[in-house]
């Protein structure tokens, strides 16, 4: 039985991932903002076979409250083997271009809060010399695009942070997994019309996350074909890239 902490447990990808863990009989500690929805997910995971589930509410941007929640998770489960950090908001790019407050808010939720959590978790995992820190970043962090570069820049910060953390924790046998989903059909992206062939279901992404954790991978694109797409996008020369409508 693995002891698993999930931050942002009411996100669609996190919820489906938690179902896979529950069916395996793992123990789960779920953290999100909305208590009622956490309860709905907890009940579902209990039925599906989770050995133990517990929940706590947290606004991740409230960095000062993070330590207490992590301590609570450690206490409730008797330690931690895996942490999945899955919270996030899809920034309103237009608003972030007009308002520095909106820009700061996006960075606090999508970058700073994650790095703060990882700072606390890295120290306990490093001391314990085992476990996995799995974090949902995004393909958007691979290269800034005019349509969502604030979100992309926040995710780029997370990706770079994870890369460094991975090097540091490798010596302590702690796995750091960077998860880069492409387009996923979730409530967060409900406003996107005309979802084409590049869009994946949360189930497929969740199965990929569990597989990557099991296989102790470093970086995964989900679905896998995004590795190829981003390879191409990253290598387009700036002189051409700046004229594209991506």
């Amino acid at each position, binding site marked *: 039985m693995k002891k698993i902490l999930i931050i942002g447990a009411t996100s669609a990808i996190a919820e489906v991932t938690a179902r896979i863990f529950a069916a395996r009989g793992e123990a789960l500690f779920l953290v999100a903002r909305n208590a*009622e929805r956490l309860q709905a997910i907890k*009940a579902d995971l209990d039925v599906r076979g989770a050995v133990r589930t517990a929940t706590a509410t947290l606004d991740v941007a409230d960095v000062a409250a993070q330590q207490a929640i992590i301590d609570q998770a450690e206490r409730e489960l008797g330690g931690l083997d895996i942490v999945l950090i899955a919270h996030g908001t899809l920034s309103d790019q237009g608003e972030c271009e007009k308002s520095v407050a909106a820009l700061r808010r996006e960075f606090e939720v999508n970058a700073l809060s994650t790095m703060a959590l990882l700072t606390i978790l890295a120290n306990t995992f490093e001391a314990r010399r085992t476990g996995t820190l799995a974090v949902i970043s995004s393909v958007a962090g691979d290269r800034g695009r005019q349509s969502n570069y604030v979100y992309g820049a926040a995710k780029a910060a997370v990706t770079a942070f994870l890369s460094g953390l991975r090097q540091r924790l490798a010596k302590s046998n702690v796995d750091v997994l960077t998860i880069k989903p492409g387009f996923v059909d979730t*409530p967060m992206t409900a406003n996107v019309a005309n979802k084409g062939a590049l869009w994946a279901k949360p189930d497929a992404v969740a199965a990929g996350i569990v597989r990557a954790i099991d296989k102790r991978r470093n970086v995964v694109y989900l679905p896998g074909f995004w590795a190829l797409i981003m390879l191409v996008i990253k290598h387009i020369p700036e002189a051409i890239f700046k004229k594209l409508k991506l």
Partner: protein
Amino acid sequence: MSAIGTSWGRYPHARQAVVPLHWRDAALPSTEGNMLPYGNGRSYGDVCLNDGGTLLHTRGLDRYIAFDPASGILRCEAGVLFADILDFAVPRGWFLPVTPGTRFVTVGGAIANDVHGKNHHGAGTFGEHLLRFELLRSDGTRIECSPTQHADLYSATIAGLGLTGVIVWAEFRLLRIASPWMAQETRRFANLGEFFALSAQSERDYAYTVAWIDCAASGDSFGRGLFFRANHAPVTAATRTPRQRRLAVPFTPPFSLINGLSLRAFNELYFRRAREGNAIVHYEPYFYPLDAVGEWNRIYGPRGFLQYQCVVPPAAAEAAVTELLKRIAASGTGSFLAVLKVFADRAPAGILSFPRAGTTLALDFPNRGAATFSLLDRLDDIVAAAGGAVYPAKDARMSGVRFRQYFPHWQSMLPRIDPKFSSGFWRRVME
């Protein structure tokens, strides 16, 4: 999966806004036009369509709420698929109390159409196994309904075609099983008389009975078919779970692949190659043979198909089924899968429940336009004259006059329908 906002028969076409529902505590959206819940789009015609309005896509309501492993009582959100319940329940020794011929229906859809299966003679419809559900109305009220609480809304919502509000969650009783296997016996019958005799003598000892009938046969072969009767098997020596082949129809061919010639050839082969006798089969191929072929509805081409399922009362059954089959055989159309089953005489769970005492016949027709519609109107004449009914979940074309004949209590629905809810089907039959 097919696009959200289409039905399984791919006819008729409808344009509507789609709003996904994800959380059972959330309110319904405010819409300008009217709304209709849409589950997994496995009903055939327009009971799940709402041209010009909004569909509330319920698949995101897919959480379990509680399961009691001692009693087998399951409570879950209404967007959970029967397929998911089977994956969950069968390894724990439980099965769906009633299941239609596809496992890709939602719990909400199963209630709203009050689905039945091969065990109707013993177990009735899905609605008969419900204990309670929550209904969310457009005015924001949430009403827990059961046979003793809001009983009027309870019986209006079972088979209520989604018109009374959104079913948010439901609680029902599962069936205890000893293994995932079915003990099945196959028997050939030469004519309808033999079918009725086999049916009558199988009802007591077999939980599941159904027949395939050769709807293309005429002359001496008229009325021939295969009778399948089965029970859940006890723990057996069979342990190898079959790997179900995952075929799929990869694209829609430009015309229907089902025509008079291919139909007669298929049926001849199917009848002759059938192996009579006993077999142990896994529940998946037994209950859901067509689920193994993804998007099989595409074989009928871009114009789609019409499914016709009717029931005719016992006294008139043999004569009416004979007349229906003759009419169909003479038309040279019809489908490979024509199904015949005897329903028991049970109190209906819902005001608009389709199953009733008598014999039910179901088959598909490729949509060939006016010729198909006129044939189905002639079949309606036979069904109406016999005092029978046609199944709304399969229908895309019955007239309002026929609907009101088939469902004489339809007026009891009117005060219970949510004023903001409607469907393509409902507007059609209320004309």
